């Protein structure tokens, strides 16, 4: 999926959410006092259609449990939920090959967040400049368009040759996978700004820097944030690849190593941990957006 496509998809999703949030579901007031106290919370969840998500998760768990319980699934490929839970406990307490689960997650999060930080640090300013100035856009666009579709593993071989098998090649790979998403989203965000705002600001004497600070950044903020979320997602997808070469810790490495020894319970446990931490990171970003850019919330109403 290209950056543009995923951007469009995300923004569609969020507008759908808005529609859903505006609809109110009629719920009969319960008589029981305890239930009544839960009512506002429940109502909000149901208005948000959260119960559907909960049901999806419950259904998936049930299907997983059922398939393994009946014996339809070869435990080598799909171990039971209890085996996966057991491996979670084992790795959390005893560790996997020298590091506990927390250390594996910590190592990976360090790599992800460092790469993400630098991707934002480079990507957002570059994107704004490319969005505002046509010349900038022409200078940098060929580079970004060229390397964006390259498969990460192909790129990785070269990075390992240049930077060695240590931490820097891993960080560089993650950084490069996160960069295009954020640049493209930022360009899009800046060029989507209503030109009347810019003219209005100019008419009261705003210089280029004032424009960036007062018009472009606040106006483009929400889309940039979406770009950051996409970028984090891309970094996440490349994590296992980045940790294949010469790592000794990290959740991606754990998954890769366990697969080598056919420890599918550890593989699935690692994937769940990876997925959950990814969701938590994404939630954090969304929350960050709500706090730093309250005007997005205003627009929703």
């Amino acid at each position, binding site marked *: 999926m290209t950056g543009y496509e995923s951007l469009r998809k995300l923004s569609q999703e969020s507008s759908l959410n808005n529609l859903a949030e505006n609809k109110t579901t009629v719920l009969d007031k319960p008589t029981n006092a305890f239930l009544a106290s839960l009512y506002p919370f429940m109502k909000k969840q149901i208005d948000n259609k959260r119960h559907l998500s909960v049901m999806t998760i419950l259904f998936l768990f049930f299907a997983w449990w059922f398939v393994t319980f009946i014996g339809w699934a070869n435990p*080598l*490929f799909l171990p039971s939920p209890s085996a996966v839970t057991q491996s979670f406990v084992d790795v959390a307490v*005893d560790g*996997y*090959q*020298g590091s506990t689960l927390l250390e594996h997650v910590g190592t990976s999060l360090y790599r992800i967040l460092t790469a993400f930080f630098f991707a934002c640090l480079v990507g957002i300013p570059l994107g704004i400049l490319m969005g505002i100035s046509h010349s900038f856009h022409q200078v940098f666009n060929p580079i970004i368009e060229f390397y964006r579709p390259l498969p990460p593993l192909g790129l990785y071989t070269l990075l*390992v*040759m240049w930077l*060695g*098998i*240590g931490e820097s090649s891993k960080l560089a790979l993650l950084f490069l996978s996160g960069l295009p998403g954020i640049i493209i989203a930022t360009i899009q965000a800046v060029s989507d700004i209503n030109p009347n705002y810019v003219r209005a600001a100019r008419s009261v004497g705003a210089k280029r820097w004032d424009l960036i600070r007062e018009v472009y950044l606040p106006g483009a903020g929400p889309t940039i944030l979406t770009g950051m979320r996409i970028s984090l997602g891309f970094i996440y997808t490349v994590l296992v690849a980045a940790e294949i*070469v*010469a*790592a*000794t810790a990290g959740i991606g490495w754990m998954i890769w*190593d366990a*697969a*080598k*020894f*056919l*420890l599918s319970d550890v593989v699935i446990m690692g994937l769940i941990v990876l997925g959950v931490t990814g969701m938590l990171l994404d939630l954090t970003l969304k929350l960050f957006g709500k706090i730093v850019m309250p005007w997005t919330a205003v627009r929703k109403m």
Partner: protein
Amino acid sequence: MKIMRKALSASLLFALSTSIAQAEVPEEVTVGYLNLVNAQLVTKSLGLVQKEMPGVKINYIKVGGGGDMLRAIAGDQIDFGGLGNPPTAIGVTRDLPITGIMVLNMLDYVEAMAVRTSANIKKLEDLKGKTIAAPFGSTTHYLLLNALADEGIDPASMKIIDLRPNDIALAWSRGDIDAAWFWEPALGKVLNDDGNLFMTSGIMASRGYPTWDVGVVMDRFAEKYPDYVEKFVRAECKGIDYWLNNPADTAKIIAKELELSLEDATRMMKGTEMVPCPKQLTQQYIGETGKKGQFVDTLLSTATFLKDQKRLPKVPTRDTFETFLDASYLETITK
């Protein structure tokens, strides 16, 4: 609905393919071969499997190491494969549907630990604080940990990293690692680049840790086409005979297949021991039906070691490994 239709057509296709299979001739045979120096390269180069199976399409897939081979087996992507004793122990313990049918090679100095000459490593003790690479889960990773354990050295006192043979050669040339236990042909590259042989798999064999590669067949294939397993073993045995009888021509083949100099190919050949097929039925190797040989002991001790490393959840019974090794194909063709 669409999924239903897909499932229906898939099952229909499956039914069709099974009815065709009653003719007991496979349409194609896929051989996964390890990227190392043994007679499989001769068999491949001379097209011996093809000669045994006229009309069948033969695919050869080069596989980097035991870990990848296990994945290929678990993913049902090959019909025949080759595995060292540690991946074999892993696969059998995890109930992979495979059967060992022959000895591909015994490992001598074709697998070895190279150390950087300028790093001045004279004994295992000197490795402390250094970075050592080995492909995890392979024969050499197994030997490295055993060699350290025998001298009472804590593996945590050095940095042992997981790299594939080709990546080891790359990391070596950059100076990222000081020692590595891996195999030819990548091993030759580092020996020419400030490297020297420190320890070989042959030395470890004499210390009671023999390592070897065994040819395996997928059970699904063996049940359906037992004749073709026999044909495969016959072809590989011819390759081994060719290797033993025509060393000079074999060296040329190896040099061509792996794009090596003739000199390197000759050296690597000497580091691998080929076992003539009749000899594979003796007690030192697979043994015979009803009385399996030392390979079973090696598999058991390998599994025990891996269990201690927490790489395996359990050690299977002796019986499991005896069942895994099937001498009948060798017995039929050497009769």
